[in-house]
């Protein structure tokens, strides 16, 4: 039975630079990369070496802790290099694309006629398994485990996020095939959560075998964590998986076409992009080609993902494994005179401490300045205003800071990952690093429970 959930808490940060609904098919860049740092809790072991030829779908590395979980190449060509950081940690596996795309063959099949085990083994071999995320903790699921339900959030409420109605247009068959794959993975429901504020797109409307739920409200209403909290809350026991809509298409293509096709539509957004639009590209692609002659002057922050929970990349960096958005905003490395006395007409704040509240419909150019120094907690109740979950976020963060495992567990660490508390970090007057504190708490929990 579908559910309608209206959320009031949250915050839509009004930024400049939303992508126009125009799809561009740029030239494919030369270089692609798979970054192990996009995944939590894995220990990559290399399967290829520089100069090895690869096809799209050839395994590049696997997880030492779960040797069945492979990570595969998004394109065909050859390995250029394996970038390593401190203690030989693998940062990036860089692949140079060949002239023509050659795919590994995995065979076409109808997912509904396959057993759950057969589907899992296809997903593992093809490297699509890591597209699934498990709650609690946002990890890659263990191949032998099954979730009690699967969540697809059909919309994204993050700042400047891509419009999935546009992105998913005309991919009904692939979407349905992907949903069929997910249905074979759980005994429970597959939830497709859509935005209740505007009419349903035909792709979502025609999807079968899912429970359609409507969510409305400001960000983070589109986060799977928030949706799971309201529909199938988890505590100590129970696992729930979620997957992004474009990744459902990738699952679908594996079974419809028998190949690994990591194509994705990516929204190029942000105030410093000259023409923010949608680009047809491939996971792990270098942002070179889409940014070329399309950004303003120097001194920019390039982000794979959104401004709240995306990852910083260099100007010739690579799109992350899970990201459907690239954002470019100005860096904020300058001094501002007497900021505390500034009337602040051009500074956005969730509080009304700046006169920008006079212009509620204004869109802002937001830079990366901290806008103040870090302090001990003084203000309270700020986090609760932007978190539409029954979780006392500030007390949870305090429990993590003092490393109180019991309290973390009781206050709801199982239900959140970084993106869910990203707005708390944004609004914090004390400039607390909420997301990295939360991740350290999650790592403590993983150590404790494994």
């Amino acid at each position, binding site marked *: 039975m579908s559910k309608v959930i209206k959320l009031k808490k949250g915050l839509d940060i009004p930024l400049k630079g939303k992508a126009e609904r125009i799809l561009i098919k740029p030239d494919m860049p030369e270089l692609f990369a798979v970054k192990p740092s996009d995944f939590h809790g894995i220990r990559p072991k290399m399967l290829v070496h520089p100069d090895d030829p690869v096809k799209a779908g050839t395994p590049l590395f696997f997880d030492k802790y779960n040797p069945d979980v492979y990570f595969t190449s998004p394109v065909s060509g050859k390995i250029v290099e394996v970038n390593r950081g401190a203690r030989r940690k693998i940062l990036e596996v860089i692949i140079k694309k060949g002239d023509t795309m050659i795919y590994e063959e995995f065979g076409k099949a109808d997912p509904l006629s396959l057993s759950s085990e057969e589907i899992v083994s296809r997903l593992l071999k093809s490297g699509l398994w890591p597209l699934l995320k498990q709650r609690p903790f946002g990890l890659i699921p263990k191949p032998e485990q099954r979730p009690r339900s699967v969540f697809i959030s059909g919309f994204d409420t993050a700042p400047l996020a891509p419009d999935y109605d546009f992105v998913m247009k005309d991919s009904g068959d692939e979407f349905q095939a992907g949903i069929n794959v997910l249905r074979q993975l759980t005994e429970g429901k597959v939830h497709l959560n859509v935005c209740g504020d505007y009419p349903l797109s035909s792709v979502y409307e025609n999807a079968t075998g899912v429970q359609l739920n409507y969510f409305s409200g400001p960000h983070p209403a589109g986060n799977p964590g928030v949706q799971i909290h309201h529909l199938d809350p988890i*505590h100590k026991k129970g696992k729930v998986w979620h997957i992004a809509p474009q990744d459902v298409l990738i699952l679908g293509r594996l079974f419809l076409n028998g190949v690994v096709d990591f194509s994705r539509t990516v929204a190029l957004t942000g105030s410093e992009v000259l023409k923010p639009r949608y680009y047809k590209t491939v996971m792990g692609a270098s942002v070179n080609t889409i940014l070329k002659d399309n950004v303003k002057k120097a001194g920019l922050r390039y982000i794979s993902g959104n401004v709240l929970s995306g990852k910083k990349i260099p100007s010739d960096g690579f799109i992350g494994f899970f990201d459907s958005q690239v954002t470019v905003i100005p860096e904020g490395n300058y001094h501002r*005179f007497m900021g505390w006395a500034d009337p602040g007409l051009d500074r956005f704040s969730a509080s009304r401490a700046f006169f920008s509240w006079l212009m509620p419909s204004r869109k802002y150019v937001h830079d990366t300045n901290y806008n*103040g120094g870090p302090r001990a907690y003084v203000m309270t109740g700020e986090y609760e205003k932007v978190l539409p979950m029954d979780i006392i976020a500030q007390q949870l963060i305090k429990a993590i800071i003092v490393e109180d495992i019991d309290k973390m567990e009781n*206050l709801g660490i199982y239900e959140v990952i970084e993106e869910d508390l*990203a707005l708390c970090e944004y609004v914090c*007057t004390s400039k607390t690093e909420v997301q*990295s504190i939360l991740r350290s708490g999650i790592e403590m929990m993983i150590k404790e429970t494994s």
Partner: protein
Amino acid sequence: MKLLREKLDKIKPHFQKGGRFEKLHSTFDAFETFLFVPDRVTDRGAHIRDAIDMKRTMIIVVVAMIPTLLFGMWNVGYQHNIAFGIDAGFWETFWYGFLEVLPIIIVSYVSGLAVEFAFAQIRGHEVNEGFLVTGMLIPLIVPVDVPLWMVSVATIFAVIIGKEAFGGTGMNILNPALTARAFLFFAYPIYMSGDDVWISGIMNGEGMVDGFSGATPLAHAAQGNIESVPSAMEMFIGTIPGSIGETSTIAILLGAALLWFTGIGSVRIMASVFAGGLVMGLILNAFAANPFMEIPAWEHLIMGGFAFGAVYMATDPVTASQTNRGKYIYGFLIGLLAILIRVLNPAFPEGMMLAILFMNVFAPLIDYNVMQANIRRRIKRASEGSDN
């Protein structure tokens, strides 16, 4: 601006690690960040951060206190004029009060900030902005004739024992400004209560208008002289004797509106303090065993320091309850206790200070219970939800 920035950049290395004045790092940092927002950019987590910071927050609270401060200055002059039968114009009256109050503000800021800077230095912390508010609150809640050395001693006591002993701003259990007030109240009771301390210059009694009483409305009420209590309008406007900033309910409401509108003061706490006071007033009305208990419940809200405490003291986010539900309980109990102490305890003419300090101590307990309820609720939901 650019010139100033260049100067700062030039001397900055001296205050950093290995520099000549490394020990004065916190002091330099305090002045530098006062002049310029740091150029630090985000490096992990969210790439953008809200424009608000602690300095802005504290400045807004200080701005919210300005109506009470200005009215208080004028009222100091006005009460003085009445007591001595002086006929003076508006500006003269204000100027008299200004000269009386300014030294208290200066002493409070200088002694408090000296301790703050010293502790920041020793701990290697940044200087916290919290004292900007405390330093303004202290002058507003003392009688105008308080000796300056007492203000200084009380401020130093409050900052060291009330705040730094617990780890500094954000860690304290008791509201520092009220700690200073309580210190004064218990250490120098003669200067802090009675009928002669509220109006400037009447301690020695020379030249006063015959038969003049400097008693506050609460003192009149406590003695049963209900007919001497000023009219509700006078108490609402604030033309009555009392601590410098507490008398005018209008000025306090202006501040409350700013705190509420900006989202910096918790309206949950403010509203529930008033609700609690009203409820206790009604209960007392129901028994009505003496004239004080017969005062209309709503009139209690504009008497004494009740409104001031509700808006500026109870809402201190560090010492109040931190959970949303807890804030309602915390505020309500403050209102209840304040009126209870005020009316039924003859030892204390006013109950607001003690009620807030008492509930400061209980705030963590309230939060604990709110959290336990949240935990039970969430566990219950999770087990109900797992139907497969």
